[in-house]
């Protein structure tokens, strides 16, 4: 077998993504993608787990790249990796939201994303091969547990006092929603994490934050302002109105939607993204040389303003 056209794809700060063509004996050609941990990088998720999730999602008929093989022995390529089918298409959200070429995708995606999300939430999170998934503690709701975990993270890393984030923490702590269901949660479901073509959705990527929890967490995260890339008139990923998306999710067999609970998760999502930016700024100040990490510290104010507006009522 020969490897041709090996090239590194953009995207993935904590993960390397390489595309290549495998030329099989006999001449058949397979377009593949290798995903691996950067050698020497501190990694908090395992390639084996992501491989198992993608395999389960593919077996259930969801639009994900078909996974081919997984190698956990770092001796082979310097760090663990897995290989999956190459899915052609675009991942730049700004192109999706602005280019004329993607107008049909903009029309199709609300329904396709809702169907994909309903499918993810219908996967069997109790299947033995998914036993690795983080689960909420027995003594707390997913909402209360996630809030407590992120508040702790924030307090451990923040360099500056953030009264706007304190206001949001109080608002969230006052009424965490009780879950209507406990399912697999994708954990990072947004338009920057899918492959699309002019016709619409081709694959859902970036499963490494998957866990068991409240499915409405994924709906709230999809509404976070940062993932609208400026198209703020359409709150769901810059694509459509919340009500339209909830209806499409229900039609696709999704779990019951309580708009107030999704709202809670949207506020939580904005807080979570703010905390992630605080953590990135902290990494930079602690010595990780990256102009991107440095700049993220100054994005916290965007989420602070959004949090003030969402919690005004």
């Amino acid at each position, binding site marked *: 077998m020969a490897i041709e056209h090996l090239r590194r794809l953009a995207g993935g700060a904590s993960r390397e993504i390489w595309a290549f063509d495998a030329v099989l004996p006999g001449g058949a050609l397979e377009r593949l993608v290798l995903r691996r941990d950067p050698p020497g990088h501190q990694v908090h998720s395992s390639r084996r787990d992501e491989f198992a999730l993608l395999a389960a999602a593919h077996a259930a008929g969801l639009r994900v790249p078909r996974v081919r093989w997984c190698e956990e022995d770092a001796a082979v390529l310097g760090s663990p990796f897995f290989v999956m089918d190459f899915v052609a298409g675009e991942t730049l959200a700004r192109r999706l939201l602005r280019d004329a070429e993607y107008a049909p995708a903009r029309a199709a995606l609300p329904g396709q994303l809702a169907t994909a999300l309903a499918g993810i939430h219908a996967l069997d999170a109790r299947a033995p091969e998914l036993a690795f998934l983080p689960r909420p503690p027995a003594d707390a709701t997913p909402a209360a547990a996630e809030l407590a975990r992120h508040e702790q993270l924030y307090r451990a890393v923040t360099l500056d006092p953030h009264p706007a984030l304190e206001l949001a923490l109080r608002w969230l702590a006052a009424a965490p929603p009780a879950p209507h269901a406990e399912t697999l949660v994708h954990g990072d479901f947004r338009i920057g994490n899918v492959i699309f073509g002019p016709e619409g959705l081709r694959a859902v990527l970036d499963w490494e934050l998957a866990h068991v929890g409240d499915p409405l967490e994924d709906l709230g995260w999809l509404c976070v302002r940062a993932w609208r890339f400026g198209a703020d008139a359409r709150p769901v990923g810059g694509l459509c109105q919340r009500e339209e998306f909830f209806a499409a999710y229900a039609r696709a067999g999704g779990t019951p939607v309580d708009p107030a609970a999704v709202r809670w998760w949207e506020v939580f999502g904005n807080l979570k993204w703010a905390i992630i930016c605080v953590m990135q700024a902290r990494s930079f100040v602690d010595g990780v040389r990256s102009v991107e990490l440095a*700049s993220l510290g100054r994005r916290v104010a965007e989420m602070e303003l959004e949090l003030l507006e969402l919690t005004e009522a």
Partner: protein
Amino acid sequence: MQDRPSVRELLDAVRAFLEEDVVPALEGPRQFHARVAANVLAIVGRELAGEEASLLAEWQRLALVLGEDASAPPARLEALRAAVRDATAALGERIRRGDADAEPFRAAARSHVRATVEDKLRVANPRFVRS
């Protein structure tokens, strides 16, 4: 006193170089990082232009919200920065204790926090603040 070009002019020269020469010559992640770098320089320029006035207004608002004497702000910039930081930490503590759950402190705290967040955005990303 330093000679011209001024700090602002020097920053603009480097930013223009990044935007006009470097960004088009790169691709992929490095092009993205060059764009981010140019944006960071723009942030620095805006911060230099307005920091002292903005800090002074913030210090006065904080003193009012926290019920402290607002008549004598620290004269030196470094001391002013430290005073704003301490007062902001104190406000954060009071919010955490629940003082801003009810009026009248709620409205006073939120109005100050909003003004401060908008000040930060006028430096970090002016287009984000709805007029």
